[in-house]
């Protein structure tokens, strides 16, 4: 189960989705592009009722991104307008041409006329509408210009226009050369690119403050929600550097640069940007008198806290702890409870990396509720649930708690947390071994319409919860033998979370695990062995466990045993019960493979007790299977059959296909073994039912392509048919067995003695 907490970082830029930056007095100024927009607006007003409803709607939709977006070349602007209304584009062009090729006075006249649109009893533009505000901003900015500035604006308008003319000339030449079909293709392609591709910014002029804010907030939210749609790290950094070169006081750009550096795991520059951001923030905080001293101290606290988060992200836990201590101390000194709560949550995350402590977390949840921080509170609840699940607390209580926190989420519309909660449930169901429930939860999340989509229009796409759910889904499919589907899901994951992104490690681990399982099933142990290194890099415990399994399969019993014992001690220390049980099972298997069934029994019983205690039902059933097998070998098949009834149901309902096959095979063996003491009539019945069970096992094994097991089943079946005197069936099975036996290398372990 992945920790859900990692996404918790204080992002001052995005509170309520608004960028807070008011470093400079001037927010906006007139540029040639803005003037083109003004012309468009006035033309729009003039055209009035002549425009069709459809055209009008298209234009309205175009306007907002134009007003907010960065400046663009005239040709692109014209193309955008043309797509909505060709007629209007022509008239805008003509007016611009008149202005640019005329005199300065034309421009002055234009601005004088602009303010008229507000006058009259029924003004064309409402003063407080988006367009109205834009117009007024522009008029104000224009009026503020000094003489030389006005002249400069005019010359830049001329340049703007001339550049377009030149380009047009070039285009026309090109047009003559290329045939019309190709041109169509080109047009389509450009349409596909969309009217507002950010890559183009680089070629346009500097951003005004408004445009910069828009750019920053857009990129930041994309980074948070759907990283693949944001600019590539390198080009984003280039943009930011550009922005900072022109205005180093634009603190938020530093923060975005910090987030961007995190994407590429660059410790050095992300630290640098983070500290720089807070240095800048501190000064703006000091300037705004409304906050007084408070604003300044606040940013100090969060600076330390963010530094802690950064170190934690990069795995420098000791450093993170020191930074966190500092944040806590400062927050305590200034009685900032909200900040303290954030610190507490982080403290929990850090402690979790080292050792478990529920107390902190419970405390955190209580306090957060008290201070009205629903986000923190429910994050706390979720962590608590996660931890309790590991600690084996009663499942119904946990599900209750999750339900309660879900209530909280829906009440406060915390869509991110809803996702996390569902992912959490998926993981918990899997932990308990209820794969159908897990499957259902995973599908719920994937097919749910996010709240965010309704609110902002951005699909939250690359959050950790999605990664977790998709990974589980892939594994669930692989377990059922649908390898094609699993690899399809993994392919999708690769696209959604590119290898250098934050959550990529998750799918990498799952991918390798699935490959490992397949290799083991096929008996390609050398392939599995080569995968172990990769798994170890991502998760050391898992890696060691897999190494032991490979060793075991290669009959290197003593090495495997040594490794498993070490792992067992380690896992017991860190209280990773799931792994402890798996390790115990493997150890038991080692014992019975060495024909020490009596030693295996207590180990298995220990595993069973643990699994029951932590309600890890699937592991429990697997233990029971092992136990039954031991009993079978020890010569008490009746007893084995008895306990098998307990385990067979959950295995068939939730188990992996391989396990189902093994279980059925085992049942058949037990039936045969116990049939020995029956009356002949009954014996025949028992053997026939065993054959049926073997058939079932065969279909399961065929699904996951386990040839060795298939061979064993066939051999066994042939023997049974032989006993029953059904020669024809016997011969068929024997033939199939022969085919398989020639394909596969000889087995080291006697056929019947193996259960897996």
């Amino acid at each position, binding site marked *: 189960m992945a920790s859900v907490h990692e996404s918790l970082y204080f992002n001052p830029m995005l509170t309520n989705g608004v960028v807070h930056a008011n470093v400079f007095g001037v927010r906006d100024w007139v540029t040639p592009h803005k003037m083109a927009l003004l012309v468009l607006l006035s033309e729009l007003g003039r055209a009035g009722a002549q425009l069709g409803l459809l055209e009008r709607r298209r234009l309205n939709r175009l306007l907002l991104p134009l007003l907010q977006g960065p400046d663009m070349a005239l040709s692109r602007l014209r193309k955008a307008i043309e797509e909505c209304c060709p007629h209007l584009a022509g008239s805008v062009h003509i007016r611009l041409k008149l202005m640019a090729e005329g005199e300065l006075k034309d421009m002055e006249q234009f601005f004088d006329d602009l303010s008229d649109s507000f006058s009259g009893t029924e003004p064309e533009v409402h003063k407080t509408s988006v367009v109205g505000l834009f117009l007024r901003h522009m008029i104000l900015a224009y009026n503020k210009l000094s003489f030389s500035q006005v002249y400069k604006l005019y010359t830049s308008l001329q340049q703007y226009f001339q550049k377009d003319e030149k380009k047009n000339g070039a285009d026309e030449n090109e047009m003559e050369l290329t045939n019309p079909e190709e041109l169509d293709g080109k047009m389509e392609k450009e349409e596909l690119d969309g009217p507002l591709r950010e890559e183009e910014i680089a070629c346009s002029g500097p951003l005004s403050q408004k445009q910069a804010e828009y750019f920053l907030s857009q990129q930041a939210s994309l980074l948070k929600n759907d990283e693949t749609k944001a600019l590539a790290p390198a080009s984003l950094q280039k943009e930011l550097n550009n922005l900072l070169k022109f205005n180093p006081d634009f603190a938020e750009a530093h923060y975005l640069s910090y987030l961007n550096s995190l994407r590429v795991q660059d410790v050095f520059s992300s630290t640098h940007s983070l500290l720089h951001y807070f240095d800048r923030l501190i*000064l703006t905080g000091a300037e705004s008198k409304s906050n007084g001293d408070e604003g300044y101290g606040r940013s100090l606290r969060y600076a330390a806290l963010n530094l802690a988060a950064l170190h934690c992200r990069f795995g420098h836990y000791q450093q993170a702890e020191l930074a966190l201590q500092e944040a806590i101390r400062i927050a305590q000194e200034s009685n900032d409870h909200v900040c303290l709560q954030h610190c507490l949550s982080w403290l929990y995350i850090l402690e979790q990396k080292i050792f478990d402590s529920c107390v902190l977390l419970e405390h955190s949840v209580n306090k957060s509720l008290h201070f009205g921080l629903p986000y923190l509170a429910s994050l706390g609840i979720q962590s608590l649930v996660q931890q309790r699940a590991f600690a084996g607390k009663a499942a119904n209580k946990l599900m209750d708690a999750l339900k309660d926190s879900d209530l909280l989420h829906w009440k406060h519309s915390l869509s991110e947390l809803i996702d996390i909660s569902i992912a959490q449930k998926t993981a918990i169901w899997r932990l308990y071994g209820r794969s159908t429930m897990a499957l259902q939860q995973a599908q719920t999340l994937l097919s749910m319409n996010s709240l965010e989509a309704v609110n902002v229009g951005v699909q939250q796409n690359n959050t950790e919860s999605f990664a977790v759910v998709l990974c589980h889904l892939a594994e669930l499919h692989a377990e059922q033998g649908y390898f094609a589907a699993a690899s399809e899901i993994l392919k999708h994951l690769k696209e959604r979370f590119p290898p250098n992104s934050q959550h990529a490690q998750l799918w990498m681990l799952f991918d390798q695990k699935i490959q490992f399982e397949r290799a083991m099933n096929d008996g390609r142990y050398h392939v599995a062995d080569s995968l172990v290194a990769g798994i170890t890099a991502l998760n050391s415990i898992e890696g060691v466990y897999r190494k032991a399994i490979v060793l075991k399969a290669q009959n290197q019993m003593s090495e495997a045993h040594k490794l498993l014992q070490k792992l067992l001690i380690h896992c017991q220390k860190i209280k990773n019960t799931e792994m402890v049980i798996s390790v115990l099972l493997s150890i038991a298997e080692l014992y019975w493979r060495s024909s020490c069934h009596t030693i295996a029994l207590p180990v298995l019983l220990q595993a069973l007790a643990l699994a029951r205690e932590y309600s890890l039902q699937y592991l429990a059933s697997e233990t029971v299977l092992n136990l039954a097998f031991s009993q079978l070998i020890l010569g008490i098949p009746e007893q084995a059959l008895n306990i098998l009834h307990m385990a067979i149901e959950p295995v068939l309902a939730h188990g992996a296909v391989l396990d189902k096959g093994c279980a059925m095979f085992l049942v058949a063996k037990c039936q045969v073994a116990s049939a020995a003491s029956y009356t002949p009539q009954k014996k025949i019945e028992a053997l026939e039912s065993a054959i049926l069970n073997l058939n079932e096992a065969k279909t399961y094994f065929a699904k996951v392509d386990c040839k060795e097991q298939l061979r064993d089943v066939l051999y066994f079946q042939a023997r049974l048919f032989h006993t029953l005197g059904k020669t024809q069936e016997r011969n068929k099975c024997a033939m199939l067995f022969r085919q398989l036996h020639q394909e596969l290398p000889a087995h080291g372990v006697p056929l019947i003695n193996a259960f897996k």
Partner: protein
Amino acid sequence: IGRADAMAAAAMVASAGGGDFSDLREIKKQLLSVAERSRERGLQHSGKWAAELAFALEPLPLSELPPPPVLTEEDARDLDAYTLAKSYFDLKEYDRAAYFLRGCKSQKAYFLYMYSRYLSGEKKKDDETVDSLGPLEKGQVKNEALRELRVELSKKHKAQELDGFGLYLYGVVLRKLDLVKEAIDVFVEAAHVLPLHWGAWLELCNLITDKEMLKFLSLPDTWMKEFFLAHIYTELQLIEEALQKYQSLIDAGFSKSTYIISQIAVAYHNIRDIDKALSIFNELRKQDPYRIENMDTFSNLLYVRSMKPELSYLAHNLCEIDKYRVETCCVIGNYYSLRSQHEKAALYFQRALKLNPRYLGAWTLMGHEYMEMKNTSAAIQAYRHAIEVNKRDYRAWYGLGQTYEILKMPFYCLYYYRRAHQLRPNDSRMLVALGECYEKLNQLVEAKKCYWRAYAVGDVEKMALVKLAKLHEQLNESEQAAQCYIKYIQDIYSCGEVVEHLEVSTAFRYLAQYYFKCKLWDEASACAQKCCAFNDTREEGKALLRQILQLRNQGETSSTDVAAPFFLPASLSANNTPTRRVSPLNLSSVTP
């Protein structure tokens, strides 16, 4: 023809090349002629530098004065236009000068033509910064002329029609366009063609950022190279090498050059050899009383030594000479700061920045002032500005660290101290600061490392050892603690510090107790007696002496026969014997 002229000059220099200063008269001749030629082209600073250096040499007899430059046919043709344009140029009417020079073919006129176009662009750029359309556009204001100049000059460059001055201008244009690599190549070429032109060398100094780059430059082998190397060594903080070079220049006969003297003073300032730097600056003031350059460095030194009257005199003097100079403002700022009038000091540093926004030192100093005023946010702002101007300004990084330390964020300031330490790996102050932070964070192992390193690189404030000793004390590593204290005492006495050090008494007290515990009575009593010399430890010292006496009397029989093993190093034992109260200066000879 101009090319030939330049070649001739190069050949002339080459004859005296290879750092060969045997013919000072020849050098003087070259300097005088290049000063004249720089002036003709409006390159005031290079002209000034050459003239200053020439002034330091013996005057030439009439017969040996360099002849006035020979006028060529082309020069004669352009003479009228040149004369007119030069006067416009001197009056800062650059566009007008350029207008009358268009079409001129002679090297001199052509250079002035291009140069006035360049300067006109620069001037317009500065003016435009004031009324650009918006703040974000401010950084975008460009010298529009640069692009055209580059195109024209590169054509000429390809055709090899540029003389030394032309190459210099081409290099400047390239640098302004941020084409650093190309610029370096062109400047090197300029130095080859006309080694006497100091401006090209100086530009190279600004572009070369480390020693490696310097190694790979192929520079002309002339005596000018020596000046260049000395200068760049100072810039790159390779003070030892720089001082060596300057010394050899002085030996070669430039002992009167104020330029060299000031550079040496700055070098001493950089390695914090305050006394030497001060005396050299005083000498410089005597020779060149109306000099303003480098006086800010001088005032820093006076400030460090808290020499109020001298600083006050300097400030008033400079203020009389020219109060609207960056250096003057800086000196006055320092003066107010020393008088603890920090608001006024900050005001003057601000004024300095208004005069020259790229004057780095003022940002840092202003940060210090705000720190004194406890205005931490303003201080952070000032330091950040300093870093923006020059990322390698270790004082600003250090100042930022201090600010956060004052705000009680020891972990947070670690980053800043580390940056400062990276820039000055051998400066003990950063290391001590780092150590203190680690100590506050209770990371004693790291703290120990820092203090030890600080001591190893030569501790300026002599505090690293005491702090190290105290750390060892805390960790109950009495052996190491004692060692540190011993080293500390040796250090204090050997450097002849007359100033009473606070921690000396602590050191002796600890040592006395340490020896007492080790039952080394002789050493213990020696240290205890030392303790009696200090007020705060007198009583303890006496008590310990009494105890030692008692114990000695008890164990008389066993210990008298055995010659007391004298563990102490020679110097320390010398220090401690109360009978030999020699002056610290004598002691320094005993120290290894």
